[in-house]
């Protein structure tokens, strides 16, 4: 059952081949047996999941089911779940039991989906290797010494290891696409404003966006059908009709114009990766698409612009953790200053502190124009690159990451080495565009991520091209070496 896709499981449940309780128990057993080594879950919701499954089975027999009724899935531990711990991978929120649901959480509940648990992640979604979680690192199912990527490393690893058919995730600079690439699964970061951020713990509010991680484009489309919604509680959410993303999967891609940005095929890209991505592009060309080279000249500036904007917004967002209303509070504070200082110092890990400090510095008196304003100007230049490119092409394709999964502790003491891991994904967040990563090849026995970037609200096209690609390739069906 664990090798089936969401689409297949949905049919199986409708046909009565198995019950949601059986399905849910199957995945709970796999998590209990295998997650001791992978560590992709922070919290497993065994009792809640089984009672949700029972309710789903009743709905199915009553003929009152949606495609998601009774389907097990997992939430990244950044989405608030009423009554279930939501830690955001931090000691700061180790005791946090949300009194409300995120909009994404409610959307899945309304469909009668079954939440297996909450997945591991880099602390406050800050990281590209899932090594910064307070709950320990996550192991990539493709190799016990390899990182799964981050920050949604738990979601990507759990889907790759078949511990859940699908999982929610979030992406601020590549946190859905990069772990999807490193774990060989399919992940989509929607257009900024497509998925509500209400109840999704904030890191950098002008960049954060929730999206799906699944094994296929078809499953990602099914997930986005649930995740995307207009929400008055998120003032940056865009009021726009949500199409049925599964209805256009089988469209022909003949005559579609696809651009390959020359800056994505530079010397920053591993040579073997380059070859695999080119092979994948040839497959897409065979399906009738026209391929041409394009230029996104400001690509190189995306990492520096991001490392001002994201830390600046993070330092503002994380100022809410004060030890007063919720979260970690130090013992015996001697005064208010001591309460703030020690609660925050004890509650946050090193990478989070580093980013708060960079952000506080960039926003401090006298530096605002030189840093934040400058970065926001460069951000517009990056967006303009894409706007010009989309006058000529319908879709942009390139690698998701410069190299396949890397080893634990391999980026050394300089934090900027890790930051450059996101060189191909960050510009999409800065521009607010939708981006997707799908398995597109293998290098040294490890998955290679193929990245697709679309115009605003063109998620249907990303899913359509990915689905057509997955119909003629089987990279997405490869099973990780450590998956039993």
């Amino acid at each position, binding site marked *: 059952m664990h090798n089936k896709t969401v689409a297949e499981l949905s049919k199986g449940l409708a046909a009565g081949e198995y019950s949601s309780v059986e399905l849910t128990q199957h995945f709970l057993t796999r998590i209990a047996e295998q997650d001791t080594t992978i560590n992709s879950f922070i919290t497993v919701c065994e009792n809640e999941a089984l009672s949700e499954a029972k309710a789903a089975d009743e709905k199915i027999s009553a003929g009152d089911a949606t495609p998601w009724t009774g389907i097990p899935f997992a939430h990244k531990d950044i989405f608030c779940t009423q009554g279930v711990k939501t830690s955001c991978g931090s000691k700061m929120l180790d*005791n946090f*039991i949300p*009194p*409300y649901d995120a909009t994404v959480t409610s959307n899945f509940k309304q469909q009668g989906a079954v939440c297996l648990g909450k997945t591991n992640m880099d602390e406050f979604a800050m990281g590209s290797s899932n090594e910064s979680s307070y709950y320990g690192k996550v192991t990539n199912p493709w190799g016990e010494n390899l990182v799964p990527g981050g920050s949604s490393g738990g979601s990507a690893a759990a889907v790759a290891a078949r511990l859940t058919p699908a999982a929610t995730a979030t992406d601020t600079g590549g946190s859905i696409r990069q772990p999807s690439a490193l774990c060989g699964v399919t992940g989509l970061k929607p*257009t*900024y*404003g497509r998925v509500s951020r209400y109840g999704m713990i904030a890191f950098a509010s*002008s960049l954060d966006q929730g999206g799906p991680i699944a094994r296929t484009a078809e499953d990602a489309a099914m997930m986005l059908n649930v995740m995307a919604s207009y929400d008055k509680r998120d*003032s*940056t959410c*865009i009021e726009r009709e949500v199409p049925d993303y599964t209805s256009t999967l089988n469209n022909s891609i003949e005559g579609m114009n696809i651009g390959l940005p020359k800056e994505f095929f530079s010397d920053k890209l591993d040579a073997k990766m380059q070859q695999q991505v080119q092979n994948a592009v040839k497959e897409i060309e065979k399906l009738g698409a026209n391929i041409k080279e394009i230029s996104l000249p400001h690509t*190189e*500036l995306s990492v*520096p*612009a991001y*490392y*001002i904007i994201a830390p600046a917004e993070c*330092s503002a967002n994380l*100022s809410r953790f*004060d030890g*007063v*209303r*919720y*979260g970690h*509070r130090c013992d015996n*504070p001697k*005064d*208010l*200053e001591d*309460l*703030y*200082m020690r609660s*925050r*110092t004890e509650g946050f890990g090193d990478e989070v*502190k*580093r980013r*708060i*400090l*960079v952000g*506080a*510095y960039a926003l*401090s008196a006298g530096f605002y124009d030189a*840093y934040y304003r*400058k*970065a*926001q*100007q*460069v*951000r*517009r*230049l990056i*967006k303009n690159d894409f706007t010009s490119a989309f006058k000529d092409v319908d879709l942009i394709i390139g690698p998701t990451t410069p190299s396949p999964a890397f080893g634990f502790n391999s980026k050394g*003491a*300089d*934090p*900027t080495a890790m*930051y450059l891991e996101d060189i191909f994904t960050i510009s999409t967040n800065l521009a*607010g*565009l939708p981006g997707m990563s799908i398995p597109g090849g293998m290098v040294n026995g490890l998955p290679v991520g193929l990245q697709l970037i679309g115009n*605003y609200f063109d998620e249907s096209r990303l899913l359509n091209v990915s689905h057509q690609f997955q119909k003629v390739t089987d990279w997405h069906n490869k099973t990780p070496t450590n998956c039993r």
Partner: protein
Amino acid sequence: MSIQREDVEKIARLAKLQINEEQLETVASELSNILGLVDQLQAVNTDNIEPMAHPTDAVQILRADQVTETNNREAFQKIAPATENGLYLVPKVIE
């Protein structure tokens, strides 16, 4: 841009974080590396470029000034570290 120990102490104070004496050098050098990376931006000509605040230039939505949420004070305070009579407790601020 090179960050000194004193700079780290100052911004840590602003951010309400404590950095140990023995960590100051390390943090200063890490922050210097990060600011070295972002200093590439200074070479870019951004004359007459409007800073970008929202990808699709959306504006803040206004709503009628009406009560739309219910009062959940008890649920919210149940997860607070210390409360009394519906108030959040902090150490004494004014003598």
